[in-house]
């Protein structure tokens, strides 16, 4: 495996949008190895914590040897991470898991809820580099929490906010509807679009429900799953996600990016507490 366990140096810390932190680390081997959608297990040194924390590479740049992470502070681990100054070390394990399958020529529609946007900096860039038409649907609670569109060059960015302060007033999932019927009706088995989704499990579920109502084939949808992670490498079996044919797949090994038809969405649960 090309998985590294390595101390990387934080070379930049900034606030890409309200409530989020962006840490840029310098680690050329990782920067060269990442596929969009893959993640790293970041060691955290907060009191009483012990497990690493899973974070998607928001973007990576082989040329400059940099990898970016974008996250919000939700608990002790992310709080600790948010305080890493420039120059401090960050212990990376990764890149891990499977990224998105980005090849193809159908129009790509990306949909992100909340911090789910993080992973799309790299995804959009890679899709655009492949010459694909990219629409980025981004949802947030309020305007200030939207990632500025200039971080997603080449994509047609549409937004939705819960408070209506920018774009569609409501769920980002509503924005897909306009992409669904014309494209899929009549040519259900392909043709259409490729959908890439990342966000809270309830958002993914409502999106899946909508897709099913529009008879969109779930195999044309790729989702980035989020489950708790122990190891991130397949040894703890802690990151189970219900598989359509029964049993479980491992988010860290079989995912985090999987085709939506591999999941039993009825058994799928939002696994996060707190």
């Amino acid at each position, binding site marked *: *495996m090309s*998985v*590294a*366990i390595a101390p990387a140096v934080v070379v930049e810390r900034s606030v890409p949008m309200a409530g989020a932190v962006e840490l840029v680390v310098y680690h050329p081997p990782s920067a060269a190895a990442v596929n969009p959608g893959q993640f790293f297990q970041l*060691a955290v040194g907060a009191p*009483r*914590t*012990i*497990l*690493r924390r899973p974070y998607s590479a928001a973007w990576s740049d082989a040329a400059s040897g940099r990898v970016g992470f974008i996250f919000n502070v939700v608990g002790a681990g992310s709080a600790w991470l948010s305080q890493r100054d420039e120059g401090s070390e960050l212990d990376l*394990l990764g890149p891990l898991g499977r990224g998105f399958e980005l090849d193809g020529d159908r129009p790509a529609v990306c949909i992100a809820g909340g911090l789910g946007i993080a992973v799309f900096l790299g995804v959009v860039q890679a899709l655009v580099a492949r010459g694909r038409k990219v629409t980025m649907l981004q949802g947030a609670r309020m305007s200030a929490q939207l990632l500025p569109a200039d971080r997603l060059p080449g994509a047609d960015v549409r937004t939705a906010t819960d408070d209506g302060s920018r774009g569609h007033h409501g769920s980002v999932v509503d924005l897909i509807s306009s992409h669904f019927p014309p494209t899929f009706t009549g040519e259900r088995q392909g043709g259409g679009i490729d959908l890439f989704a990342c966000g809270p499990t309830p958002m993914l579920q409502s999106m899946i429900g909508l897709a099913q109502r529009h008879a969109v084939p779930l195999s044309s949808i790729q989702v980035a799953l989020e*489950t*708790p992670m*122990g*190891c*991130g*490498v*397949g*040894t*703890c*079996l*802690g*990151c*189970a*996600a*219900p598989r359509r044919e*029964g*049993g*479980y797949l491992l988010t860290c*090994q079989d995912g985090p990016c999987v085709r939506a038809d591999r999941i039993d969405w009825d*058994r799928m*649960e939002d*696994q996060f*507490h*707190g």
Partner: protein
Amino acid sequence: MAERLDLTVDLGRGLRLRSPVLVASGTFGYGFDAPQVDRIALGAIVTKGTTLRPREGNAPNRIAETPSGMLNAIGLQNPGVDHVARVYAPVWASWNVPVIVNVAGDAIDEYVAVAERLDSVPGIAGLELNISCPNVANGLQFGVDPDQAAKLTSAVRAVTRLTLIVKLTPNVTDVVAIARAVEDAGADAVSAINTYVGMAIDVRRRRPVLSRESGGLSGPAIKPLALHAVWQVAQAVRIPVIGIGGIMTPGDALEFLLAGAVAVQLGTVNYIRPQAAHEVHEGIAVYLQEHGLRNLRELPIRSASVLTHA
């Protein structure tokens, strides 16, 4: 200096390890997935708990972080003994590190069937009987009762020539009684300990975090408890004791070796610092040198009092 150090360990019945540092069941899969670990330097790999038939495991959530520890209720997800014997063992046979299969089951017959299936399979160096899994129905029953534990051990002993390690549960009033029972029933070694039954509640949603409600606590949080269990057991049995519980550093491992363990297993730390096993091995070597010791058998200390609690 270094070449004169003897860090080998004899677990009985011909199983000799080149290092006292093993990786614990459930924290290293079947040896295929851990990144960047030089397997050859490990004392042994202990596999995920393996049952007669494949198991899907429990519904999520299966894990939760706790202060300096983690809870798990994986539910013995595993591909079943047949897959292990047919697909994994042949690969292990080519590895230069002993692989010990951790065996689990719901009934004595099931343990016996697994042991029989594995007995003559090349690539398998020993069995560790998990009589103490808190995460499956009836899982704890064998581990908390000396008679049951002895019965299970004898039954498996009767069908295998492999080195037989029995893994103790700490969820008992008197771990020494169980250790003595399995020693008398023919175990070659005991490993101590498995996880402690614990729980976490999701306050926001007002329900247990784990789908099974309770789970097993591992990690540094339990180190002082595990160390005490090993200390008691090591002074009560003559067979080798393998220490397990919360080990992260060479110093942690040395605590167990001083407490009387002949070897240690690293568990949860493998998730966090996959390189830990090697660091621990090196740290033990340095310690022996600094203290003018040449092998691990010179390490153990003994209780000053006859009764540990007196």
